[in-house]
C-alpha cells in the first residue's frame, strides 16, 4: 500500500493545488515533505535482500494482459529515495525565483512529474512502465514551455519529439516481447524477461538497440545528446534540475531494470559498442565543457560526461560497476541540483549566465562561494565527497574490464577538475566586478536548500555503506541471473 501511496499522493496533491489555487507553493512543499516521510518509512521497513517488497499487483486491463504491478527492490528504492529527497529541496529552491506566473499550475505540474518519476522506478509491468515513462515527459515539457527562456517553443518541441521517438522505439520493442511471452500474452516483468531471453542473438540485438536508444536519449549518451544542452539552458532552473537530477536517472534505471536482464545476449553482443559510445561521450562532453563560457551549458555538458561514465560502468556487467552507478546516480542528483541552484542564485543577483561577466563573488559572498566549492568538489569526485565513491567504483570496474577503456574514462576526473575549477575561478575568484551591496550572500531560504545538499554530499562521501547495502543484494541477484543465463549452453 505504501507504494500506491507514493504514487497516488503527489497526484492527489497536484489536483488539490490545481483546484485550490491559493498558497500553491506552501501546499506543494508540504505535500512533498509528506511524500518524503512516506519514503523514509519505506526505507526503514525495507529488508535489504534481493526480493521485491511492498508489491501491489492489481488487475488493470485484463483483455490486453496488462496489470497494475508495482513494487520496490533495493535498486528502485534508492531512486525513489533520491526523488523524494530532492523534491522538497527543488520546490523550496523555486521559491526564490522571481515571481513565477500562475504558481498553482507550476507546482501541480511538478507534483504530477513526481508521481510519474516514482511510478517509473516502481513499475514492474512493461506497459505500466511505459505509461509512467511518457507521463513524466508531459509535465516537464509544459514546465519548460510555459516558464522557459528565449526560443523555448522550438527547443522544447525538439526535446519532446526526440524523446518521444526514443520511447516509441521502446514501445515497439516491448510489444514485440509481449507477443513472445508464452501462453496468454502478458506484460509483467518476469514474463518479459523470459520472453527476451528465449530469443536468438539476432533478435536480442535488435531489441537491445531499440531499448538502448530510448534510454540513451533520456540520459543522454553520445550521440543522442543533441537536445540536452539547449533544453537545459532554456528551461527554467526548476525544470533543468528536474531533468538533470532525477529524470535522466530514468534512462539509467531503464538500462539496469529493463535492458540488461531482458536481452543479455544482445548486451553481450553490443554492450561494448554502447560502452565505447558512453566513453566517447565522456571525453567529448568534457572537451566542450572546457570551452564553455555559459555556466548553465557548462554544467549541462558536465552532466553528459558524468552520465557517460555511469553508463559505461553499467556495461561492464560487474557488481562494482553497478554499485558505483547506483551511488553515482545519487551523488550526481545531489551535486547537479546544487550546482544549478547556485547558478540560479547568481543569475537572480546579476542576471547573467556568462562567466566572463562574473568574478570575485567570493569577496562579497563568502558563504555562497564556499557552498559552491564543496558541491563542485563533490561533482569532480574529491575524496570524502559523494562523487568520489561513485567514480572510484565506476573507474575501477572499467579498469578491471579493460585497461584502455578505464584510462580514457578516467580522463573525466582530470578534465572535470579542470573545467569545474576553471569555472570556480572565473566566477568566484579574481577581481570583483560587483559592488558588495548589489550582491547579497545566501539568504536563510537559500541556506535551507543548500546546507542539506552540502551535508548529504559529505555524508555520502564519508559513509556510503548504508545506502550501498540497500541495493547490494538486488544488484548481485540481478547480475547473477544474467551471468547464469549467459553461461548456460545454448
Amino acid at each position, binding site marked *: 500500500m505504501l507504494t500506491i501511496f507514493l504514487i497516488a499522493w503527489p497526484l492527489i496533491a497536484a489536483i488539490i493545488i490545481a483546484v485550490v489555487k491559493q498558497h500553491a507553493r506552501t501546499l506543494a512543499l508540504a505535500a512533498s515533505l509528506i511524500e518524503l516521510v512516506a519514503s523514509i518509512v519505506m526505507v526503514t521497513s525495507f529488508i535489504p535482500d534481493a526480493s521485491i517488497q511492498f508489491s501491489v499487483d492489481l488487475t488493470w486491463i485484463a483483455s490486453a494482459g496488462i496489470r497494475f504491478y508495482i513494487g520496490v527492490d533495493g535498486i528502485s528504492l534508492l531512486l525513489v529515495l533520491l526523488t523524494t529527497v530532492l523534491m522538497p529541496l527543488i520546490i523550496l529552491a523555486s521559491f526564490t525565483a522571481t515571481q513565477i506566473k500562475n504558481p498553482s499550475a507550476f507546482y501541480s505540474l511538478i507534483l504530477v512529474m513526481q508521481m510519474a518519476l516514482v511510478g517509473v522506478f516502481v513499475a514492474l509491468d512493461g506497459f505500466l512502465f511505459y505509461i509512467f515513462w511518457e507521463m513524466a515527459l508531459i509535465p516537464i515539457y509544459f514546465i519548460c514551455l510555459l516558464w522557459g527562456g528565449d526560443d523555448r517553443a522550438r527547443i522544447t*518541441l525538439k526535446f519532446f519529439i526526440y524523446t518521444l*521517438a526514443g520511447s*516509441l522505439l521502446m514501445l515497439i520493442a516491448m510489444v514485440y516481447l509481449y507477443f513472445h511471452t508464452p501462453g496468454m500474452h502478458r506484460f509483467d516483468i518476469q514474463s518479459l524477461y523470459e520472453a527476451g531471453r528465449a530469443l536468438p542473438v539476432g533478435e536480442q540485438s535488435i531489441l537491445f538497440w531499440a531499448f538502448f536508444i530510448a534510454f540513451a536519449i533520456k540520459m543522454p549518451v553520445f550521440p543522442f545528446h543533441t537536445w540536452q544542452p539547449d533544453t537545459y539552458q532554456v528551461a527554467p532552473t526548476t525544470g533543468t534540475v528536474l531533468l538533470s537530477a532525477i529524470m535522466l536517472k530514468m534512462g539509467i534505471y531503464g538500462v539496469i531494470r529493463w535492458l540488461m536482464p531482458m536481452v543479455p545476449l544482445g548486451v553481450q553482443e553490443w554492450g561494448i559498442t554502447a560502452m565505447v559510445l558512453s566513453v566517447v561521450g565522456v571525453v567529448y562532453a568534457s572537451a566542450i565543457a572546457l570551452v564553455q563560457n555559459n555556466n548553465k551549458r557548462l554544467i549541462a555538458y558536465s552532466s553528459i560526461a558524468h552520465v557517460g561514465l555511469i553508463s559505461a560502468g553499467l556495461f561492464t556487467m560487474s557488481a562494482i560497476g553497478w554499485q558505483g552507478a547506483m551511488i553515482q546516480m545519487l551523488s550526481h542528483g545531489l551535486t547537479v541540483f546544487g550546482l544549478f541552484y547556485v547558478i540560479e542564485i547568481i543569475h537572480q543577483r546579476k542576471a547573467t549566465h556568462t562567466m566572463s561577466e562574473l568574478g570575485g563573488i567570493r569577496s562579497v559572498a563568502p558563504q555562497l562561494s564556499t557552498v559552491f566549492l564543496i558541491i563542485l568538489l563533490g561533482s569532480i569526485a574529491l575524496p570524502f565527497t559523494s562523487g568520489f565513491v561513485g567514480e572510484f567504483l565506476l573507474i575501477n570496474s572499467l579498469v578491471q574490464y579493460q585497461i584502455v577503456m578505464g584510462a580514457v574514462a578516467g580522463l573525466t576526473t582530470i578534465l572535470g577538475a579542470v573545467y569545474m575549477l576553471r569555472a570556480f575561478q572565473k566566477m568566484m575568484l579574481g577581481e570583483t566586478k560587483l559592488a558588495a551591496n548589489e550582491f547579497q550572500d545566501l539568504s536563510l531560504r537559500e541556506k535551507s536548500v543548500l546546507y542539506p545538499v552540502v551535508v548529504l554530499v559529505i555524508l555520502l562521501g564519508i559513509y556510503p555503506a548504508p545506502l550501498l547495502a540497500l541495493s547490494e543484494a538486488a544488484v548481485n541477484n540481478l547480475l547473477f541471473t544474467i551471468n547464469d543465463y549467459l553461461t548456460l549452453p545454448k
Partner: protein
Amino acid sequence: MYLIYIICGLGIVSLLAEIFNFKKALLPIIMLGLLAAIGVAAVGENTGLAFSGMVLFDRFSVVYSTMIVAIAFCWFWMAYSYFHNRPYLTDQSALVLFSIVGAVILTAFANMAMLFLGIEILSIALYALSGSKKNNLFSTESSFKYFLMGSFATGFLLMGIALVYGATGSFELMSIQTASTNGAQPLPSFFYVGVLLILVGISFKVSVVPFHFWAPDVYEGAPTPITAFMSTIVKMAAFAALIRLFTVCFAATSITWLVVFYVMCVLTLLVSSVSAVYQSNVKRMLAYSSVGHAGYILIAIVSGGNVGGLVSYYLAGYAVASLIAFAVIHQIEESGRTVFLSDFQGLFRKSPWLAVSMTIALLSLAGIPPLAGFFGKYLLLTQAIGNGHLALALVAIFTSLIGVYYYFKVIIAMYSAVGSDQNIMISTSQKALLFILVTLVVVLGVFPDWFTFL
C-alpha cells in the same frame, strides 16, 4: 429498431415546432429524446432482423449506434448556442436528426439497398447543412463541393452494388456472403469490380487518400458545428458500414481488396500528416488530422482480428477528442475571431478552460498516454505487429511523430505570451460539457476495459 423510430419522431417534432410555436422548448425536447434513445439503443441488444429483414440489430450495430447517439447528444449540447442564435432552428435540427437516422441505419443495414439509403439520408441532409451559412462564400463552396463529390461517390457505390447484384443475384449481405464463400461456382469477374467500386464509394465517405480531396475544403467552409458533426458522427457511421461490408460480407474475397486498403492506409497516413504540417487554419489542420485518423483505423482493417471492437474503441476516443477540439473552435468563433493559428496565441490567458481542454484533446489525438488516443493507437499497433505487419506499425509510429509536431504547434501557440489579453467568456453549460468530455477522454484511456463491448 425503436431507435430509428425515436430519432425520426424527434425529427418530425422539430419540423412541427415552427407550426405549433414551441421553438424555445425544442432543443431540450431533442436532448431528452436523445437521452431516451441512448437508453433504448443500449438495452435494445440483439433485436435481430427488422423491417422485413432490411436491418439487422446485432451486437455490433448496438454498440456503434449507441456510440453515435451518445456523441449526437453531446453534439447538440455543444451546438446549443449555434442553434440558439440563428434562424431556421427547426429546419436545421430536423436535418441533423434525419442525418443521425442515416448514421444509425449504416450501423445496422442487412441489405445493400439499406446501405444506399443510409448513405443518402446521411449525406443529403449534410449537403444542405454545410451550406447553411448562406451568405458566406466558403460555406456555399463547401456545400457544392461536398455535393459533387458525394454524388460521384454514390455513383460508384450504386454501380458497385449493381455489379455485385448481377454476380450473386441478391442485395442481402448474407446471401452475398454465402455466394462468395461458396467455392462451387466461381464468381464472375465483374463481382470483384463491383467490390472495388463499393470500396471507392465508401472511401469517399470515410475520406481516405486518394479520395480525401473534398475533406479540407468542406471542413473549413462548413459552419463549425456541422464540421464537428461530419468529423465525428459521419466518420463513425461510415466506418461501421465499411467494417460490416468488408469484414463480414466480402470477408471471403479479401484478396481483392486487402492490398488496396493496405496501399490506401499507408498513403493516408503519410499524405495526411505531411499536409497537416503546412496548415495555418486550425480547422483545416483538423480536417487533415481526421483523414489521418481514418488511416490509423484502416490499419485495424488491414491487420484483421477483432476489427469491430478495436475500431469502436478507437472511434470513441477519436470522436470525443475531436468534439472537444471543435467545441473549442466553435467557442472561439462565437467570440468573433477567426481560427487561424495566430488566433490561438495566448488562448491560455484568454480562457484557461478552453486552452486546457484543447490541450488534452490534442494530446489525445496525438496519442500521448494515458489518454484515449494513446490506447487506441496502442491497440492498433499491437494488432498490426501481432499479425505480422511490422512495416505498417513503423509507418504509423513515424506519422504519429509528425502528428505530435502539428498538434503541438497549436498547443505552443495557446501558451505563448504573444496575443491580446481579451478574455473569452464561455457559458457554464459549455464548461460542464468540456469537463465531461475531458473526463471521458481520460477515463477511456485509463480504463479501456470498461469500454470494450465487442
